[in-house]
């Protein structure tokens, strides 16, 4: 990727996808009465939105390419920081939540690090490096956070009650 605009368009989408996914997960947890994790996801969504705003700020005077969702050039199926839906569980604990976020941030870091390594465009290289560093900070922060959370009991996902049927 060699164009700054394209790079920023991706960065914006990356954060947007991450935030939306966190919102979605927060809602899902709330519906499943897992308020503690819902709140964490909301917080994570908030951070993603802050970053989203930051990146947008970078691009404010630029005309960005209007990419369709499937035109993004990630190596992954979704934006690198979007939490994989299938890695969630209604009984998941804050511990899982933070670790999930950590994985997301690590992928984010990897994404930017890759670009900064591979790109020939100096401006993109600079920005990618900057973003990668920022993601690295997030990783460190989340790692600290994770360290303070007690691991759940091994049977954290045990639900003695049967699933509900409806319709």
């Amino acid at each position, binding site marked *: 990727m060699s164009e700054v605009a394209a790079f920023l368009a991706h960065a914006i989408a990356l954060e947007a996808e991450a935030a939306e996914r966190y919102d979605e997960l927060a809602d899902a947890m709330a*519906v*499943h*009465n*897992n308020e503690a994790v819902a709140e964490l996801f909301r917080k994570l969504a908030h951070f993603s939105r802050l970053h989203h705003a930051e990146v947008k700020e970078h691009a404010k005077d630029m005309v960005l390419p209007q990419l369709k969702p499937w035109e993004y050039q990630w190596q992954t199926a979704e934006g690198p920081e979007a939490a994989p839906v299938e890695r969630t569980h*209604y*009984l998941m604990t804050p511990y899982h939540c933070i670790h999930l976020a950590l994985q997301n941030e690590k992928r984010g870091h990897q994404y930017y690090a890759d670009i900064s390594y591979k790109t020939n465009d100096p401006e993109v290289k600079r920005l990618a490096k900057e973003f990668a560093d920022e993601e690295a900070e997030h990783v460190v922060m989340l790692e600290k956070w994770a360290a303070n959370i007690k691991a759940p*009991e091994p*049977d954290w996902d*045990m*639900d*003695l*009650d*049967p*699933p*509900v*049927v*409806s*319709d």
Partner: protein
Amino acid sequence: MSGYSVSVALTGSGGAGAMTAGQILLDAASKAGFYGLMTRSMGPQIRGGEAAALLRISTKPISSLDDHYDLLVAFDWGNIARFAAELPLAANSLVLTDPEQGEVPEPIAVFGARAAELPMKSIASGIPGGRVNMVGLGAAAVLIGLPLDSILSVLTAQLGRKGEEVLAAATAALRAGAEAAAILPSVTKLGTAPKDGVVRWNISGNEAAGLGALKGGIKFVAAYPITPGTEVLEWLAPALDKTGGALVQAEDELASINMVIGGSFAGIPSATATSGPGLALMTESLGLAVASETPLVVVDVMRGGPSTGIPTKSEQSDLNIAVYGLHGDAPHLVVAPNSISDCLYATQWAVYLAEALQTPAIVLSDQAMGQARALIGKPAESPYVAKRLVAEANIENYKRYALTASGISPMAIPGTPGNNYVADGLEHNERGTPSSQASDHQSQLDKRAHKLDAFDYGDLWADIEGDAEIAVVTWGSATGPVQEALLRAKAKGINAKMISLRLILPIQPAKMAAALKGVKKVLVVEQTHSEQFHKFLRAHYDLPKDVAVISQPGPLPIRPAEIVNRLAAWK
């Protein structure tokens, strides 16, 4: 409230284990020699939704939930507003809450019951592997006076195979809850368990219906899953497999009912189970079963309607479609169990009747009976088993639809030499050849109506209790509250007779007239919005002038107090 029972609700969400705790409590009550009943109410989420286990434990067999819960143990308050209406509390009820979960929310607070706090979550977290529901369960047991031993023995039986550790954790949590309960305000306590020597069964209405079908002789089931009928099938699938029968999952209800018709035509007693939307899809082919005189049984576990409605809640509003839902003049059987144990008897009887009368029988159960579990005395054996009037081999000029005195014609089963015939849903003559002649139509219509009308259904057509100038006429799961209400009314000096119809179709005018002899006033009790049962009674029976109706749609159950009040007001 009633003096011989205690009602407990356990609520919680997201894996708190309210249902499991309720289940253990019921099992323990059984172990300790009590009777009991448990229903449930749940949110729409597949997993982790809010759930309530609603129990009543008693020293006598019981047929209904009580008007109120004596004890509500709330593990948390997630979405409580959604089913607060199903959790009525009295002033002297106790709400046990976890202080971590905050204030008692408005929809519960309005009942004005007493409240007490128990830090269930923190107690549980102090125990390795400890779970909040076990803490609450321990407290509940102590509060209602259920021996802890009985719970421990259930735990041992159920958790034993999960290993020592799990069992130890549960036991510790249970004990911790029990200890903590010592300082809590008191709650109505259970009396002494009856030492009646009666073997207790712990069974749901849906399981009972499955068992009834099996005992009646059903060997082949084809079905399509639907809430709340699925559990009938879930019980039957392995049961049939083990006992030489078979259950097949069909592509839809049109297929399942026709597979059942095929199985029965082939000589094997056959059945299916469904709920309202599925029954609606079956009516065309039920007409075929009527016209072709093919016996079969459909268990309809009713849920809230119309349309997809409220799949997880109970209502009696499929009465109309069960009775009148077939096009043309299509006489058939409708049998309605009026208790969880009667789900067994009535279904078994329905199999017998369907086979004897070569006609389809609809068993109208409902979610309230089907998905509730009861502790009952082991049901007595019933003599009703499938016995079809079959044709011997090589009958000369065999007439499948011969006009006989009883209206029942010997049915040739494939494999029987010499009697091959073609069953037909077109109007036909005695041989089965299609005919549009007025005389054939008249005589076959007469025949099909007559065989049902002329049959002797004995006393089973209705359960009649008491004798008085007031009669409460009811059916199905509304019967339980009526029975309890009449007991209470009696205690207040109000006498009333109960007539609970088991045989909805065919109608029994002579028997009803006899049952209503001397009755001046009738109270009809049912769970529909449009008074379906009342209208049905008016259509087919002569009621006294003075008729009152309690007709309320689901999902709230009919409470005995409402009936008592109505009777008292009449007095």
